């Protein structure tokens, strides 16, 4: 983390063990109640998640932190409706998603959710603009309009010059920027990111992280990011620490806005 020193100034923040902020009136966007995920491996049951309760609010940047195998990805996938919970409730934007059928979940993701992958998952046969425009096409937007929007978001993530590059003719950092632009282009309420910087070097990691935080702040979106790195998690508004499928603690951090944006 040699490069990390430059950003030390950013870590001038206050972290508290509480999860309430009486100063702001916040609207809940994700409510999780008593959530369980149990995998059956042969005869034995694996409790990937063993009873989780929490609420995430509109415009918040939440990090889910924990050691490997603690159930972070499992939780995120269930929040995004990619996996069914074994027990419990997930309410997103006042809608229960645990009861939805698969095609309803697809429609739900299309309307409200953006997703950023660890391995970028751009479609190799498409160029940057087409990749970003892809989720818009699932909404039935005409090509001209969606390409226009895609270009706008690519500019936002600083890829003016690489617009027409094919997906695999770009560096990892560039690909992840395309991935971010793709998640943002649909203007989702919530963006899920599972180790979005897992495959990037630390300098690029910082750039990407700040970019995500900046854009999400500007657009009042909720960002839920999974990471196993405590340092990265400290950039979030709140950190949800998970150990062995249970919430261990929720940490709240107050950052100084000006410095963050400078960085």
């Amino acid at each position, binding site marked *: 983390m040699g490069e990390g020193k430059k950003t030390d100034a950013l870590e001038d923040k206050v972290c508290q063990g509480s999860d309430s902020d009486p100063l702001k009136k916040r609207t809940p966007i994700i409510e999780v109640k008593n959530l369980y995920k149990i995998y059956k491996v042969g005869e034995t049951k694996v409790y990937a998640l063993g009873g989780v309760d929490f609420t995430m609010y509109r415009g918040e940047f939440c990090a889910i932190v924990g050691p490997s195998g603690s159930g972070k*990805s499992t939780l995120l*996938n269930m929040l*995004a409706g*990619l*996996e069914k919970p074994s027990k419990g409730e997930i309410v997103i934007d006042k809608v229960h998603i645990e009861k939805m059928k*698969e*095609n309803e979940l*697809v*429609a739900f*993701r*299309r*309307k409200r*959710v953006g*997703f950023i*992958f*660890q*391995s970028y*998952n751009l*479609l190799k046969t498409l160029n940057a603009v087409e990749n970003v425009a*892809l*989720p818009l096409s*699932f*909404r039935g937007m005409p090509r001209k309009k969606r390409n226009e929007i895609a270009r706008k978001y690519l500019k936002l993530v600083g890829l003016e010059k690489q617009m027409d590059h094919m997906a695999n003719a770009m560096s990892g950092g560039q690909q992840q920027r395309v991935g971010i632009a*793709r998640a943002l282009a*649909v203007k989702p309420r919530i963006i899920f990111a*599972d180790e979005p910087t*897992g495959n990037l070097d630390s300098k690029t990691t910082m750039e990407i992280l700040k970019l995500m935080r900046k854009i999400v702040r500007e657009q009042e979106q909720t960002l839920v990011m999974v990471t196993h790195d405590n340092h990265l998690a400290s950039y979030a508004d709140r950190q949800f620490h998970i150990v062995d499928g249970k919430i261990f603690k929720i940490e709240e951090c107050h950052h100084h806005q000006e410095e963050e944006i400078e960085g």
Partner: protein
Amino acid sequence: MRTALTVLGVIIGVASVVIMVSLGIGLNQLMLEMYSSYGDMTTISIFSNARYSDSGSDSDPMYLTDEVMEQFKHLDHVTGVSPMLSCYALFKQGVYETSIDITGVSQEYLEKIPLGQGQAPKEGDPMKLIYGNSVIQWFRNSKTGKGYWDTMELPDVDFMDKPMFVIFDMDAYYQSQGGGENAPKPPKKYMVETAGVVEGGVDDYNSYAYSVYTEIEGLKAQLKKIFKKKPIPNQPTNKKGKPYPYFIYDNAVVFVDDMANVTEVQKVINDMGYQANSQMEWIEQSQQTYDIIQLVLGGIGAISLFVAAIGIANTMMMSIYERTKEIGVIKVLGCDMGNIRNMFLMESGFIGFLGGVIGLMISFGVSYAMNNFLGLGQAMMGVEGDISRIPLWLAASGVVFAVFVGMAAGFFPSLRAMKLSPLAAIRNE
């Protein structure tokens, strides 16, 4: 590459189905052509059982008379009727002569005869004759007694430009030829004009080739004039041995509007008590045989198309397996499940379409080669004609079927793609 091989499989499948079916159609139509060369397929020939075997009953036998013709004419689907009356006569031109039947038929029948030379007589014309294209073979030289069959040289007979003399009263003629001093004078010769000669060379067979035709009313008038009170030869007599006051025909033909109705009309006439025959009986029988042949041929082709379908299914499975991650990604991004399924259905349908179109083109090529270079039609049926025929409906249904097979083969793989878990996209390898 894999897709190309799959398409190749479909090409072979479609081509074999189309070629096999085209052979079936070709054989069937060759057979129809063969029968139609024997005679018009929409005509029914009618005989009276009573004509030769006089029954002992009191009522008049069921002769074919003008009255009966009138009945036939009013049957459903019947467009025309022609009685047929033949009389044996001697033809003479120069040294050449022969005795053959003149067949009297209706004006309508005459007009159906395809002529190579001359024109069918018009209504009301004096008696004119139409000669079959092979009739010339019957003539023999009366001096040498040798004919075409002895010398293999065509007699020098000209129907169109030289006059032909005809003797109708054969009994009288034989008596006069009988020799002796009190032999009667030979009967009167009539010069009869020629209307035309049937289309085709001397050796080309058709149903008119060996006959001589004339308009029946003219023939009847002629016979009455010649025989006057004498009984006309070949006309039956009643119980008292007297001729009937009207003509009784040897047989008759009925023209039907469509091949499909021939069997029906034939049955009605049979039920009336006459003996009706048509080409349709034979055709229907052989049609059944050819239907089976076609089924077998089509089945052979279908097997290769089935193999191609398995190939498509396999390719689709592989392609879905390879794209598991992509499918997962677009599912996470909110692509409708139906869209994913349709995407793969379209792809397999397109493989089918491509294979169908190329397969069809190859079929046309093979079919052309079989028809033009192999002469299979001649070898198998003894008839000249295309053995492989690809009608428009076969071409169209070949392609449609290929698309259908492609989509059917892609159906289960595409369902699988649709149901793939989006988690596959997130898992890192």
